[in-house]
């Protein structure tokens, strides 16, 4: 094998990965770039750089209201789903009970069901029961599909927990509730936080289920879908770009701190 082809075969995968990442990032870069577009009615043609849309964000009809609605729905359904899901995760990992297989199936099925079926099913239920569509029905729907993901995330953490920690608490005459509050809960907290972040992200980005159960209530993705038909205002790109930057900064911070902690632990041992 000559050196050129050896070089190529060694670095083909690097080249492929770089091209793949560029391809995946194209629409993201495009969306962020067009948040700086000096657009008039439609935001399709590039008309020059401006910061106006970032500074006068809420002047576009409905963008800020939709964004605020999404935050509200995300927070409430995250709290509900994280509470209910964490309780299930602890029970699954720590207790013996009948109907374990049925419970696991009930948790697995919502994740294996297409969203359009979940959305239409809830809408049919609300229709039959005569419940008008509102923020409440959206929150009920989001909590439902987040629970399974919370269980998956927290359960992994419970399973990795060393039972000796809790035994030590009991040996030192701590009551069961003291053991839970002082030992179990703090150890589970990283898993619970991860689950809450995942729930919020799922809720914030959900469109398909929301569309069936929101009626006149507008979340940010629903705003995007409705506005897409007549052309999206640049302010929508601003909101999405801002969310993107915040999320990326959060992820990078978490990764850097955990890398630093690993390094510190490695240095100690």
């Amino acid at each position, binding site marked *: 094998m000559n050196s050129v082809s050896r070089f190529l075969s060694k670095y083909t995968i690097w080249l492929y990965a770089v091209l793949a*990442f560029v391809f*995946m990032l194209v629409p993201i870069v495009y969306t962020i770039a*067009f948040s700086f577009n000096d657009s008039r009615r439609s935001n399709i043609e590039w008309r020059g750089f401006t910061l106006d849309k970032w500074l006068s964000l809420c002047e576009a009809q409905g963008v800020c209201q939709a964004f605020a609605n999404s935050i509200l729905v995300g927070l409430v359904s995250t709290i509900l789903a994280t509470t209910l899901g964490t309780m299930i995760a*602890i029970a699954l990992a720590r207790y013996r009970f009948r109907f374990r297989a049925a419970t696991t199936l*009930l948790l697995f099925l919502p994740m294996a069901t*297409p969203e359009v079926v979940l959305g239409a099913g809830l809408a049919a239920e609300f229709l039959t029961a005569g419940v008008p569509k509102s923020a409440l029905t959206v929150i009920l729907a989001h909590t439902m599909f987040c*629970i399974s993901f919370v269980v998956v995330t927290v359960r992994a953490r419970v399973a990795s927990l060393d039972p000796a920690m809790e035994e030590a608490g009991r040996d030192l005459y701590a009551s069961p509730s003291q053991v839970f509050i002082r030992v179990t809960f703090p150890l589970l907290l990283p898993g619970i936080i991860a689950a809450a972040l995942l729930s919020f992200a799922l809720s914030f980005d959900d469109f398909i289920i929301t569309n069936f159960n929101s009626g006149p209530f507008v979340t940010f993705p629903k705003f995007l879908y409705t506005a*897409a038909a007549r052309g999206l205002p640049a302010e929508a790109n601003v909101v999405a770009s801002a969310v993107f930057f915040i999320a990326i900064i959060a992820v990078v911070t978490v990764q850097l701190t955990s890398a630093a902690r690993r390094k510190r632990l490695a240095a100690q041992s």
Partner: protein
Amino acid sequence: MAFGAFTTTAAPPTDAGARKRSKVALILLLPGLAYLALFFLVPLVSLVLTSLQSKVPGGDIGEYQFDLVFANYGTVVGQYGEHILRSFGYALVATVLALLFSYPLAYFLGVTLRRFPLLQALGLTLVIAPFFISFLLRTLAWKQILSDEGMVLGTLKNLSVLPADAHVTGTAGAVIFGLAYNFIPFMTLPIYTSLEKLDLRYVEAGGDLYASPARTFFSVTLPLSAPGVISGTLLTFIPAAGDYVNASNSFLGSPDTAMIGNAIESNFLTQQNYPAAASLSIILMATILVLVAAYVRRSGTEDLV
């Protein structure tokens, strides 16, 4: 990922006190399971009942009554047969494309970058980066990039590479492209998780035994990453088959590319033909469950649930 999450069933606790405490388990389980029963199971029952309803004689649009009209299913299959076939066809092609795109990428992240933890973390962040920007906006961005006079087609037309009337958006190809693009992270992450744990000594053993790199890949690497491939394909195929955003007119599709999700949406939310929407939903769910069960059985891992 989600589908692998239930595979490692932790051994149930063995201490003698566990059985006594089953009351605690009940208290922990009951609220969440009751919630899922009320907002997941009851809706499914509600869909079945709605799918069998009949029109109220002389009633308004959207007024239906309890009935057992099984013919509703035949009606929607006759009316939306093409939508149903398109859904599963598009989802299948998009899943294969996403797999072909994602496997090398996952291999790069999980094997090539093993010696560079920082680059690996950066790569993973890039893979999940699309999650942080609404998939509606990403799809709209592709629509504008691929539009008739947009960056790609406009340039190619100016260079006379493409005829002036060439178009991409609104075609089946564009919808499949959009579906494949949107689910790349769902495909890449589970495969990465499998490959990251891959013991490279097995791969070396293949080479030591004079297997060609291709042979080693197909008889060692690929089988060992099968759980990731199965999870990834399911996490792509299921949502893709039910998607109605990519195929809708204001995104990458046209009326000629409408999928079953579009038919459910328009029947439920626009035409208020609830029985038709419900029948289509049941057909979609039942078909997916049958396909997934067959697929999981054939691929030999029955411990997914």
